[in-house]
């Protein structure tokens, strides 16, 4: 049976169109719809269980690591993931993505369109952007922005920074936000993509900071050759959701994966795709290239896929607790760190 959740809201696209039209005539830029002041801020609870809570994304910068997850949790490590400290964030909103362009700068994104920045390695935070859902007040006239914007309340799903100033945040309903001043201002670049149906954008990946890929719902794959200034839509081999994209060290190599364990591989920057035999039908959520040959992918129900041939074939193992894994990275010591339903875990070398 097909259930409709967020999708049910797309009826309002027509309204949104009208709204955009009207803003055009009123000469108001969509990029200025920053409602961060309407976010409900509640300091995250400092918890000794935070490293076992649901964590969703992970960033590595030298010896430092940062992971983010539910309830406004941000945890930081300075010793390659052996010990972690919780950062005191001002929100209890679920955080879905983290970027760490250098040791001091941290950018996190989350639900309700939240973007937060810390310039002091997680000691203090400033909320830069927000787009919460504000229920229409009874009796008040339906406001085109409050009531009609499907992105209101919806999450951003990934964040990437080229350096401390230039970065992208992307997420539900095709949201693509860009900054060039370290997040002081965010511009809506969604319309630089051919994504009229506003499919969710799930992940961004790059190897050289110029050749960028974004994957999303409905098999959407976008590519930018100019650091994100312009975007092309690639022909997709799949019409289900893609949750992750990896760019190989070989530059021309790229791999996308997602729902039901599907994996596709391209050796020509995504111009054509080959389906890889997947040993699982659990959705794959994250992964990383360890080097040109060794690739690891992780996903729901604790599956870990390992390839020694650059992603042509995969072996599978499954965590005994079957808890889902959402992201995996290699730390400076070469060990694997992963996050997910079990919190953060440092994989033993035997896992290879």
């Amino acid at each position, binding site marked *: 049976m*097909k*259930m*409709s959740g967020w999708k049910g809201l797309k009826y309002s696209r027509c309204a949104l169109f009208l709204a955009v039209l009207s803003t055009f005539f009123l000469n108001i830029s969509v990029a200025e719809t920053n409602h961060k002041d309407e976010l409900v801020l509640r300091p995250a*609870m400092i918890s000794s269980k935070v490293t076992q809570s649901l964590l969703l994304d992970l960033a590595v910068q030298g010896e430092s690591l940062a992971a983010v997850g539910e309830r406004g949790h941000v945890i930081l490590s300075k010793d390659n993931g052996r010990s972690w400290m919780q950062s005191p964030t001002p929100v209890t909103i679920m955080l879905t993505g983290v970027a760490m362009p250098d040791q001091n700068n941290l950018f996190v994104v989350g639900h*309700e369109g939240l973007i937060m920045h810390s310039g002091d390695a997680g000691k203090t935070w400033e909320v830069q952007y927000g787009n919460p859902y504000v229920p229409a007040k009874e009796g008040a006239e339906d406001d085109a922005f409050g009531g009609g914007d499907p992105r209101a309340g919806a999450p951003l799903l990934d964040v990437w920074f080229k350096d401390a100033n230039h970065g992208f945040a992307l997420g539900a309903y095709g949201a693509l936000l860009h900054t060039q001043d370290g997040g002081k201002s965010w511009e809506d670049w969604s319309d630089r993509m051919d994504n009229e149906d506003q499919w969710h954008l799930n992940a961004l990946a790059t190897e050289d900071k110029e050749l960028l890929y974004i994957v999303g719902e409905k098999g959407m794959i976008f590519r930018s050759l100019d650091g994100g200034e312009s975007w092309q839509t690639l022909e997709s081999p799949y019409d289900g*959701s893609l949750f992750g994209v990896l760019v190989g060290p070989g530059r021309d190599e790229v791999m996308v994966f997602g*729902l039901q364990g599907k994996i596709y591989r391209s050796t020509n920057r995504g111009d054509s795709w080959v389906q890889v035999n997947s040993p699982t039908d659990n959705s794959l959520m994250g992964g990383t290239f360890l080097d040109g040959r060794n690739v690891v992918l992780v996903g729901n129900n604790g599956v870990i896929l390992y390839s020694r041939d650059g992603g042509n074939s995969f072996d599978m193992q499954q965590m005994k607790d079957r808890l889902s894994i*959402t992201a995996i990275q290699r730390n400076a010591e070469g060990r694997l760190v992963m996050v997910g339903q079990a919190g953060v875990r440092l994989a033993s070398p035997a896992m290879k």
Partner: protein
Amino acid sequence: MSKKKHGFVRRSEDVFFNHRPIYIALIFLCTLFLGWKALFVTLDSSLEKMVPMAHPYIENLFEHKDELSLGNDLRIAVERVDGDIFNADYLEVLKKITDEVFYLDGVNKSGVQSLWTSNVRWVEVTEDGFIGGEVIPPDYDGSAESLRQVQANVLRSGQVGRLVADNFKSSIVYVPLLDQAEDSPEKLDYQALSHALEQKIRRQFEGPEIRVHIVGFGKKIGDMIDGAAEVGGFFLIGVVLTFIFLLLDVRCLRSAIIIVGTSIVAVVWQMGILTLLGYGIDPYSMLVPFLIFAIAVSHSVQIVHSFADEKVDGYDNFMAGRLVFRSLFAPGAAALVGDAIGFFTLYIIDIRVIQELAVAAGIGTLIVTFTNLVLVKVIFSYVGISDKAIEHARERRRKPSIVWRRIAHFARPEIAWLSIGIAAVMLVAGLYEARELKTGDLDAGAPELRPDSRYNLDDAFITENYSVSADVLVVMVETPEQGCTRYPAMEAMDRFMWFMENVEGVQSTVSIVTVAKRYITGTNEGNLKWQELPAVEEVLNSSVQTVPEGLINTDCSLAPVIIFLSDHKAETLKRVTSAVEGFAHQNNDKAIASFVLASGNAGVEAATNDTISAAANTMMWFVYAIVILVCLMTFDWSVAGVTCIITPLVLTSILCEALMVHFGMGVKVATLPVIALGVGIGVDYGIYIFSKMCEYLDEGIELEEAYFRTLCLTGKAVAFTAFSLSVGVGTWIFSDIKFQADMGKLLTFMFAWNMVGALWLLPAIANVLLKFIVDKPSSSASS
């Protein structure tokens, strides 16, 4: 004052002794009637009786009783000995057990869950949305292919650790119970249920391949009632032992029969009156008949010794009876009334089983006044005692035992101070140890039963193989109507759950929020980045459309948060409930959501602990206040006299608490009464000894000699009583029911130590306070 009471005793004496036949006939008729009534005594035990109904937690619970499960359920784990559950034979047995369970009395049929019930489902997300179905599909046919299908469905059902063991070697049939059978006002008969489970489930299906483990309140109570009934056997052993000791002591078959007989009459009356009042016997009040028998024997022994003594002095039966009445009625009645009121004070603990125990023990003690205090004397005035007994008494008086002479030394000044010093040290040591005294149950599993009982082994099996704890606290979240699934309420619940998960002793939490988040993740293709409560109203509404039974009520004004605890130790419960109260205090908002305690077995237990620890001290003060008052009235407001009698009791009470710490017992429904009963019984010894000693002191005999003569008569009776009762109660230590064994240990100690206190410490204190005692006007009990 003294004169008036004296006159009352004389008048009573005339009433009873001038109309002896009428009195005996009346007693006989009453015994017949009450004996007939006592035949209808019922074993009874329901959840409501064991919980403090006036505690706010329980009031809240009963306010929502119909909307929530009371946590009254059974879990039947069916284990396959060799191999896993994905086996056609195993599933066949599981199916039969599931079917059988539906026909048990008191089962809430719609809530039964097992791999075979349609409410246990699996769901999965695909490109097209959700797909799902029953874990054992309708087309299941036991083939290898079907079994593989079942295995796959189990894995994606999320039931591993809940209905299916972590090691896949067993699965659970979950059986919620109704406290009342469905279409009758009758309370559920847990004993019958327990027997049905044994016969229809365990005996029928257990074999070399299959083992059945059953846990849950209903089973536990059933086992307790079964075990408690065995205490009837201990009662018989106690009666026989008492009879033999009596024979040895008094050397008179006639007296032994009279004493045991009248004491049994007291028990029969007590049972009959309880049945008239509509009370039943439950595993806790099971000790009361024993206690009444003990008290009855204790007083009768005093009487027979005094009677023999009067006979030695040459009085005829009638006069000897009258004289004994005159000398012992006042202290005996005082002691009994004191006991009774002391027992009645247990009534202030607002838990039905304790209150019924209070009434049963109180009434029983008052009955002893009629059946033994008077009846035994009247019967002796007819039948007398054997010549051998009189000869024995004469011999004793002529050549008193050297032991009593030695014990009388305790009344000497230098030894008195030493004794008081030792007692003081013991008191301090006892107090020090008793600091550690805890409230509630301290052991895992069902502390009412022995650790190696079948029930506790079953409980350990389930704890070991399933991840969901059996210790469940339910917090009820009250919201405005239709408000339980609105964002502000659910957001508060979500925060509350994480807050609680961070409290030590909390394993995990479940509520409608859990379901909503899972659903949202599901509609978003299993992507955990969406596992957040959506603020968007339409989305949130859609996420709570298919909620399992019990997570919201019909008008959506109540949603429980289920908190699984690591254990049910009192400190864990206290810590967790305090955390809930702290959160509620800061966050409760009538317009959004109020967090209200409590349901679940841990909630009930927390309330019980709370009630008991709140009442425990009050009750002790009350018991002591009453006992002191009774003593004051008996001994003409002699503070010195009361000090002599009460101090040993205080020492006993404190040492008893220290002993509980030593044995790892907490203050709970089973042990609290014992502390009070111990005081009640202990005071008898003191009153008898002190009053007799005062008689001698009033004759101008100096203390050590007066005490020596008291010992020869009353002291002997006290020592005898304490010994035989300790032995009798000591048999309880072998009870299958752990709390009865605990009660046995404590009562044995109390009977014995109260005697030691009365024989050792009383004269020492009397020595120190002597001038206050003899300066006072004579005791009312003396001539």
